[in-house]
């Protein structure tokens, strides 16, 4: 790996090493959230949540835009997951579903 890639990996690992940041990332991957709405979800100050958002932004995991006085954050799906890893996860979900079907058909 070259230096910029290593730097980016460092930033990403650092960003994901914190439980609150992982939680924020999950929320913004599901849809755009304002930073103030995010802050309301955690037992910490607005400034602290804003710092977490900034760390995620520097790691390239979320993007921010302004709408009037609000800052809106959304997760960068492409940065976080490649399509192939998502399909692998989907396979895992399907395997679970098929196992349940198999068991259900045996029992009924």
């Amino acid at each position, binding site marked *: 790996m070259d230096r910029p890639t290593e730097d980016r990996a460092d930033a990403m690992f650092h960003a994901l090493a914190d439980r609150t940041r992982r939680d924020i990332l999950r929320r913004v991957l599901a849809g755009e959230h304002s930073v103030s709405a995010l802050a309301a979800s955690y037992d910490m100050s607005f400034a602290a949540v804003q710092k977490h958002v900034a760390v995620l932004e520097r790691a390239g995991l979320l993007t921010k835009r302004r709408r009037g006085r609000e800052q809106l954050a959304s997760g960068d799906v492409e940065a976080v997951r490649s399509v192939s890893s998502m399909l692998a996860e989907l396979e895992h979900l399907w395997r*679970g579903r098929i196992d349940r079907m198999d068991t259900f058909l045996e029992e009924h």
Partner: protein
Amino acid sequence: MPVTDVTTDTDHRSITITAEFAAPVERVWELYADPRQLEQVFGPPSHPATFVDHELAEGRTSKYYMTGPEGEKYAGLWDITGVDAGRSFTFEDRFADAETWSPAEGMPVSRNTYAFEEVDGGTRATFTSVYETAEGLQQVLDMGVEEGATESINQIDAFLAA
């Protein structure tokens, strides 16, 4: 393991799963035709499904929702686009508003084909899902993925594989 084959296509964001069940085709079809049976196997244990409306007939719309561990509801619609009774059906799966059941604007759609054939007295089922966008795939996963460390590890895996 009843899963016999998995084929993924990253260019088209599609997945095809082949599975074999030790039950006749009519029995497996019934599992999909009966909402009370379907909801018992559809959602992962962390997100059980409830089918409010469901009839396997072309032109019908099924309504379902999944309930997450914190009581959050994810609603969806199946627009049934074709039925060959006892053999196969096709449908479009989309997100919906859990209150009004109106399709969520600008939200992803997946096109699905579920087909069943007899093999030695059992059933071979082929499930194909095609997702329009990576975001759509992401949202589907967000409903069914166990929260916590696995996700972070997957994200890191994905990054290292990119």
